[in-house]
C-alpha cells in the first residue's frame, strides 16, 4: 500500500487553477521532492496531502485513509520554512508540545524528548529559548518536534529556504541521517535543484499555470549519500536532467495552444 496516493486532484482558487489532474503515488521509505517555479502548486500539493486545504476534486489518501482521518490519527509531521517555535517554551518544551496535545504521560514524554534532542544533536540546549538559537538550530528543533510523535510521513515545505548555503548543505546531510534513522517517508518542497537531487529518491518536476506534474526523475545515486555525492558525475547528470525538465515545463507553458 502506498503511503501517499493522489488521484486526479484538481485545486482551484477562485478563477485560477492551482493544480490540475495530479496523480502521484509515494511508497513507504521514499524521499520525494516536489520542485518547480513559483506558482506551480508544489506547496498547494503538499498542503493537500497534509489536509491543510481540501482539493476541489479528486482524492488524496495517506496510508489508505482519507487525509482528514490520517491527520486526526497524527500520521504527519510538518516542517515549514519558518520554524514556528514558541518563545515561551524552552527547546525541550517546544519538542514536547505535540506530545502534550496527544496526552502522553510525563515520563514517556521526557524520554521521547531526550531521544529527539539526541537525534537532532541539540544536547545541552534543552533549556534554551528559541531566540537564543541560530536559524539552523531552530529548524532542527522544528524537525525534532515534527518527528516527536513518530508520524509515518514527514511533510517539509522549503524547510531550509531561509538558511545560508553552507548551513543548508549541512542540514541536508543532517536530514538524510534523520530520515534513515527514523525510517519515515518524506515529501519535500524545494526551489533548489541540487538540494532536490542530493536528498531524494525521486524528484517530481512541476510546471505552472495550471500546476501539473511535467516529469518524474528517479534518482539512482547510491545510498547513503555523503559529502562526495555532490561531486559524482552522476549527480551532475541528474541535476542537468532536472534542470532540463524544468525548462521543458517552462517552454510548454509558452508554446501556443
Amino acid at each position, binding site marked *: 500500500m502506498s503511503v501517499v496516493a493522489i488521484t486526479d486532484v484538481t485545486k482551484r482558487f477562485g478563477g485560477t487553477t492551482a493544480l490540475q489532474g495530479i496523480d502521484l503515488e509515494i511508497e513507504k521509505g521514499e524521499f520525494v521532492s516536489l520542485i518547480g517555479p513559483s506558482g506551480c502548486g508544489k506547496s498547494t500539493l503538499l498542503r493537500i496531502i497534509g489536509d*491543510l486545504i481540501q482539493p476541489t476534486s479528486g482524492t488524496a489518501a495517506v496510508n489508505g485513509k482519507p487525509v482528514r482521518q490520517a491527520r486526526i490519527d497524527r500520521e504527519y*509531521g510538518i516542517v515549514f520554512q519558518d520554524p514556528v517555535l514558541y*518563545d515561551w517554551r524552552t527547546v525541550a518544551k517546544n519538542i514536547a508540545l505535540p506530545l502534550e496535545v496527544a496526552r502522553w504521560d510525563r515520563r514517556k514524554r521526557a524520554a521521547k524528548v531526550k531521544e529527539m534532542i539526541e537525534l537532532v544533536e541539540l544536547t545541552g540546549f534543552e533549556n534554551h529559548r528559541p531566540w537564543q538559537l541560530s536559524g539552523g538550530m531552530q529548524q532542527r528543533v522544528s524537525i525534532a518536534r515534527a518527528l516527536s510523535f513518530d508520524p509515518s510521513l514527514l511533510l517539509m515545505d522549503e524547510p531550509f529556504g531561509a538558511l545560508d548555503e553552507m548551513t543548508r548543505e549541512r542540514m541536508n546531510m543532517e536530514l538524510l541521517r534523520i530520515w534513515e534513522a527514523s525510517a519515515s517517508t518524506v515529501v519535500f518542497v524545494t526551489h533548489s535543484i541540487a538540494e532536490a537531487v542530493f536528498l531524494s529518491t525521486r524528484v517530481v518536476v512541476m510546471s505552472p499555470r495550471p500546476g501539473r506534474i511535467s516529469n518524474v526523475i528517479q534518482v539512482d545515486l547510491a545510498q547513503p549519500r555523503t559529502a562526495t555525492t555532490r561531486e559524482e558525475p552522476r549527480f551532475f547528470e541528474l541535476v542537468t536532467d532536472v534542470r532540463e525538465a524544468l525548462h521543458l515545463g517552462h517552454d510548454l507553458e509558452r508554446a501556443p495552444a
Partner: protein
Amino acid sequence: MSATPTAVQPVPRGGMTRLVGRRLTDWLPAAVVLVGGIGLWEGVIRAFHVQAFLLPKPSAIASTFWHTRHELWSAGWFTFQEALGGFAVGSAAAILLALVLARWRLLGSALMPYAIAANAIPIIAFAPITNTWFSPLNKSSKIAIAAVLCFFPVLVNTLRGLTSVNPRALELMDSYAAGQFEIFRRVRVPTALPFIFTGLRVATVLAMIGAVVGEYFGGTLNALGVRILTEARVSQFEEAWAGIVLACLLGIALYLAVAAIERLTLRWVPSTFE
C-alpha cells in the same frame, strides 16, 4: 552534524536582583530630572511670589502631606480599593469576553467595531449616571465607572493578541489533531499575554482616574476625590494638592504592580533581558 552547535546568547541568570540592579542605573537620569524639576518649581514660586491658589510650594505640599497623613491615607485607601475593584471587575470581564469573541469569530466581527468605537468615547462622562445607579456614598458606583473605563482597552488588546497568532502555528496545531481548547490554551493565550498586559497597564491608569473623578460627582467625605474637591473649594490648596499627590502615587503604584507581574509572567520575552 559535524560542527559543534553554539548558542547565539547565553541563558540569562540572576533573576530579579540583577534586573533591579540594572534598573537603578537606568533610572538615575530620570531621578535627576525629578529632583531638578521639584527644585525649579520651589525656586520659581519663591522668586516670583506665586500665590498658593495658583500653585503651592512643593515644600508646603510635602509638609501638609506629612501632617495630614492619617486622614489622607484613610481616604486614599478607600479610593484605591474602588480603583482596584473596578480594575479587577472590568479587566476580568474584558478578558472573558475577548476569549468568547476570539472563539466565535462571527460574534467578534459583529461586536468589535462597537468596542473600538467605545474606546474612543469619553466614558468618564457617564460617572454621574453610575452615581445614580448605585448610591453615590458606597463604593459600587465608583467601581462601576472604573470598571467600564478599564473594560475597553483590555478587551481590544486581548482580542488583538488572541487573533494575531502565526497562521502556520495554527496549521501545526491542526497537524497534531489539537482541538480548539488546546489551541487556545497552548498557542492563543500565551501569544496574547504581552497584548493583555499592555491593556492592563493602560487600565491601571484609567481605574484610578475613574475612581477619583467619580468621587468628584459625589461620595463619602472619607474619599480622595471628595477630599480634593472640598479642600479646593475652601481654599485649602496645600491640602488639595496633597490629595492630588497621593492620587498620583497610588496610580503609579498600581501601574508598577502590574508591570512587575508582567515582568515575572513574561520572563520568556527576549526584551525582558535587554
